[in-house]
């Protein structure tokens, strides 16, 4: 993005004003690259969805809470403990009012997805690269099935249409 190799636009969300929040994966942020990478993630996400449609959770970055999907917790065995653990994350997400959570980590992704179902939060989990591709206009039909129906038509460029016969 900074080198101009890829261009992201948040125009698709100008009128929709769909709110997005983020999860700071412990391994990526607190345990490895710190607040700078947390800032990078926000830089990318804001470019995708529009600065005014990004809601930061609190606390955040290195001070954010673990979702409860790490350390092997996702494996079967302690499901209700894992969901109890995740209540603090769930409450934090609900507080943002966001419809979409971007958790750039597989463990976080699965856990936050499960928390939304378990606590009936109504928020969805999406990969950062999915939102990026949408904002670049290159997200194909099969790659959108993880998004809500109101995003099924957003940011589609000609490149993802079926070939001319």
């Amino acid at each position: 993005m900074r080198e101009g190799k890829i261009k992201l636009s948040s125009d698709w969300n100008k009128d929709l004003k769909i709110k997005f929040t983020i999860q700071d994966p412990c391994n990526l942020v607190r345990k490895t690259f710190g607040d700078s990478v947390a800032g990078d993630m926000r830089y990318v996400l804001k470019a995708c969805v529009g600065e005014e449609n990004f809601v930061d959770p609190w606390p955040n970055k290195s001070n954010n809470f673990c979702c409860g999907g790490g350390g092997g917790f996702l494996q079967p065995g302690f499901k209700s403990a894992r969901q109890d653990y995740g209540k603090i994350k769930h409450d934090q997400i609900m507080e943002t009012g966001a419809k979409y959570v971007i958790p750039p980590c597989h463990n976080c992704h699965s856990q936050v997805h499960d928390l939304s179902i378990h606590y009936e939060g109504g928020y969805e989990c999406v990969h950062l690269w999915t939102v990026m591709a949408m904002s670049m206009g290159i997200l194909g039909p099969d790659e959108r099935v993880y998004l809500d129906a109101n995003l099924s038509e957003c940011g589609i460029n000609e490149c993802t249409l079926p070939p001319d016969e």
Partner: protein
Amino acid sequence: MADAALKLGAEPKTTFLDKVSDLLPEQGHLNLCLTCGACSSGCPATGLEGMDPRKFLRMAALGMDEEVTSTPWVWMCTMCTRCVHACPMQINIPQLVFQARKSWPEEKKPRGIVQSCKAAMIDKATSSMGATSEDFVESVEETLEQVRSQQRGYKDLQVTFDRKGAKYFLNQNSREPMAEPDEMVPLWKIMHEAGADWTYGTAGWAAENYCMFAGNDEEWEKIVRIKAEAVDALGCEYWLNTE
């Protein structure tokens, strides 16, 4: 002259905390606890199994080794290190938890974690879902073929395996190729649009490593080595870990 020093009956015992201290740089600061509770007040695992980080550390400091090495709480702490971040003395409680996990007999450890570790050892793929390199290639090629035939802008989209000299070696969590292959496509497209010179590998392509969570150092190291050697063998400059 003072009386001779009073000799107590019990020999000082080497506690679990002492042993862990010896393993860690600066003893993990394990003896510096001020008992303030900043760790516990910001820990989502506080209260599970009647335990919290401060209590766990205090019990270890009191030599309650039996309790510390048998509480299932060590499998509920995700070792996220928020407690260290909050701690005025930077005490490495997560390492104390990790060493407690290691002290569990293999057959008593939570089976899911142990099995995911074992599954990764059966093939050079290192997939905790037990997926092989052939499974990965097949899933990627099938998905790629679909994109090429269905999207006019991506008729020539390229995904390579084991391409020597590629700048970036990209790995993938097993869940994608095995459960949600369409989720890989946006990533390929972004790499394509950015003109990135990247490749997948047939060895060590699976991003996850459950042996770490299982407290199995030996297998953990094996997996990391398989992955690192796969990157080195292709001479790639960067290892992009999507996990």
